[in-house]
């Protein structure tokens, strides 16, 4: 029993699902946008926005019992507290499995808009070399597209979402259409100058961020209140709610259905198309069936693959669109974590005004153009950095009591600290993979995903090199004290999970073609991180958006020509 028919169904309303909904509706299609989570209304449901510290339970200390019971994965995102817990996944209610010796942190959103409300908003283009990396060094399979194929779509996406940043003319980090960059702290300007002199290969630039530095397309410039992850009613950073959802709604061709868990897709062997999307209402438990000419999976890397694996049929016994057998394989995430912290005694008469929701960026400087002779790894990494002028929470362990202690804690500390976090490229490995657990089901009766992933030698060697290079950077920058470490966070903690339904020209090696269209099923598109063929070392969200807009353009032109 089909409840309703649409031109297109988009599964997932996060960064890519919002884009698909916008593009498809603007091109004239009637679209059903499904999300498994409750609705989050722009502004209205940002309950913790601008809540002052004294209204926070325990003034912002973690509610450990609640987190340990229900948010034991989400808490690792590091930005969840009482102000925005409703935007995160409840991990007790929505479990997944992993190999016990290989912990994987699958950090998910828990509301419409998904992680678009919670991301750190860093927006970088993959480079020409990133798209060539697999074919040149033989890891994974070649990308079916080049930088030139995606460049106009990067332009298109940046122009819509608004990305602030500084053009640098670097081949490894292509420039985009930028709003003015945010300002560096005085100490960062000092460090930048010293690095330019002593380590000219290392560029230090302002973070390229989907936060508006001036009014843009009806959205207000950032007011620098600080914690973006609580939601932003002025729409000053890109989220589904601030940007793509209003655009889709303006067409009057969008139906948004929250609390809609997609159980599986149904394949019609006669038409060779996906014919039905099976949905379970998360509130009532009732089952619904929707049909459409086009289906876009944008549920996030692991979730989209889970749906395809759970949509096996006589025709596709190993999972829908999986004639290649590649579905679920080649899961990637960046290696992440603090690589070093340094203390500086410069610019002590400097302070700042406003809360900058952004840091600085040191783009890849290893193995550019060709392999560095002293590098024990292939590919590269970048550093994201931030500067802190210590305040009371950094000074609280000062010795003493009374007036002097109070004064010490009240004033900014007598140094600047700079921290560097390393983001390292992860190669595609077929046995880093997602499967369905043969036994365990979730509360809707859907098989849970089982994730098996570990970083390998190349990732760990790159990590070791990060610590060596961070030390050189700190010395060149004039740090008076520094520490470095090379351990990575667990896979998943980068929240850049990618792969598992990769693109490729060869249908025997890949799930999707160069238009994000399933090789096996012409009306099925997957445009979230699962399509990725390699991971680069830059934050991937901007690339997902560009790929989504490009795929929508192709899908609609095929649709209008009657080819899909």
């Amino acid at each position: 029993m089909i409840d309703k028919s649409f031109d297109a169904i988009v599964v997932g309303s996060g960064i890519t699902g919002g884009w698909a909904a916008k593009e498809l509706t603007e091109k004239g299609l009637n679209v059903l946008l499904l999300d498994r989570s409750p609705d989050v209304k722009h502004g209205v449901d940002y309950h913790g926005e601008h809540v002052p510290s004294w209204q926070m339970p325990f003034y912002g200390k973690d509610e450990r019992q609640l987190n340990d019971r229900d948010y034991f994965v989400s808490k690792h995102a590091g930005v969840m507290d009482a102000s925005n817990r409703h935007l995160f996944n409840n991990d007790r209610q929505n479990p997944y499995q992993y190999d016990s010796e290989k912990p994987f942190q699958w950090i998910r959103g828990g509301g419409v808009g998904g992680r678009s409300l919670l991301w750190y908003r860093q927006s970088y283009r993959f480079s020409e070399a990133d798209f060539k990396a697999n074919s040149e060094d033989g890891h994974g399979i070649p990308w079916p597209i080049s930088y030139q194929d995606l460049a106009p779509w990067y332009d298109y996406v940046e122009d819509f979402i608004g990305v602030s940043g500084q053009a640098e003319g670097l081949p490894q980090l292509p420039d985009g259409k930028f709003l003015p960059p945010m300002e560096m702290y005085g100490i960062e300007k000092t460090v930048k100058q010293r690095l330019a002199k002593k380590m000219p290969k290392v560029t230090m630039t302002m973070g390229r961020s989907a936060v508006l530095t001036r009014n843009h397309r009806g959205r207000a410039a950032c007011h620098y209140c600080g914690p973006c992850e609580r939601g932003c009613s002025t729409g000053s950073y890109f989220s589904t709610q601030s940007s793509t959802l209003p655009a889709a709604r303006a067409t009057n061709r969008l139906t948004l259905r929250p609390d809609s868990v997609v159980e599986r897709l149904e394949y019609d062997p006669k038409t060779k198309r996906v014919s039905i999307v099976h949905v379970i209402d998360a509130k009532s438990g009732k089952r619904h069936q929707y049909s459409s000419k086009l289906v876009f999976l944008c549920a996030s890397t692991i979730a989209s693959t889970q749906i395809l694996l759970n949509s096996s049929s006589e025709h596709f016994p190993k999972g829908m669109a999986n004639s290649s057998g590649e579905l679920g394989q080649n899961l990637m995430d960046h290696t992440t974590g603090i690589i070093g912290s340094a203390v500086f005694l410069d610019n002590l008469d400097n302070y700042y005004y406003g809360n900058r929701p952004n840091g600085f960026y040191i783009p890849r400087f290893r193995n550019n153009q060709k392999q560095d002779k002293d590098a024990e790894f292939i590919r590269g990494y970048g550093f994201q950095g931030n500067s802190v002028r210590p305040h009371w929470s950094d000074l609280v362990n000062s010795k003493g009591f009374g007036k002097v202690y109070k004064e010490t804690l009240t004033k900014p500390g007598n140094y600047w600290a700079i921290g560097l976090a390393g983001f390292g490229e992860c190669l595609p490995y077929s046995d880093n993979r997602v499967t369905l657990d043969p036994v365990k089901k979730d509360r809707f009766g859907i098989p849970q995903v089982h994730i098996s992933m570990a970083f390998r030698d190349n990732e760990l060697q790159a990590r070791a090199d990060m610590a060596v290079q961070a030390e050189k950077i700190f010395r060149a920058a004039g740090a008076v004290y520094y520490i470095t470490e090379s351990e990575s966070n667990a896979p998943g903690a980068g929240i850049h999970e990618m792969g598992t339904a990769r693109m490729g020209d060869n249908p025997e090696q890949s799930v999707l073609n160069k238009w994000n269209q399933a090789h096996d099923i012409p009306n099925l598109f997957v445009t979230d991180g699962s399509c990725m063929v390699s991971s680069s070392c830059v934050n991937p969200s901007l690339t997902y958006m560009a790929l989504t807009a490009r795929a929508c353009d192709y899908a609609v032109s095929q649709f209008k020509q009657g080819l899909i």
Partner: protein
Amino acid sequence: MNRRQFIELTSLILAGSSLPAGAESREQIQHQQKLFALGQNFIDQPATFFTPQQRRLVARLVEIIIPRTDTPGALDARADHFIELTVAHYMTEEERKTFVSGLMGLQAKIDANKANTADDEVETAQLTRYLEELEAENSDATWYQLGSRVDNGFDSTAPFICQLKELTALGFFMSEVGATQVLHHNPMPGAFEGETTLSSDQPSWARNRPGDLS
């Protein structure tokens, strides 16, 4: 605030900060969202954990750690009440035991001293010396190490003296009094400037979260 909101607020405050253990997180989240909507100050809720004697002692201790000077002090910010709420509802059993036995140990010292003097109440100077002794005895604690800082977590190995200092500072600088009358508070800066001039008597900016970068 209208009458209905007032009644709702009163009942929420009486209910305290948390629902019964085991309540669904959805209920807890909605409860918290109501408190946010009503603008309830965290320390407006009652605390019943300490004995009257313990309560008096904690009040004296926080004022010794962060006294009123030309600006308000910890007692003005009700940091003592914040500590009582935190010990009662935030700490683990183990952390709570550390705090309460530390407090009792201090009380025992005071009582022993009292036996030797005619004074009813131990001098502030004497109490400060006790705290200094405690700090010296525990100076090898991880909490005192370089790089250790207050954030949204809690060091379960922290001895009583460190718990006391951390919660006093937190209860002071994150309070409305501390954030707005002692630190500089600007919830809506409207601009960002990375390089301003710092004057010698300028306090830090108040921040949104303990240990927050922004």
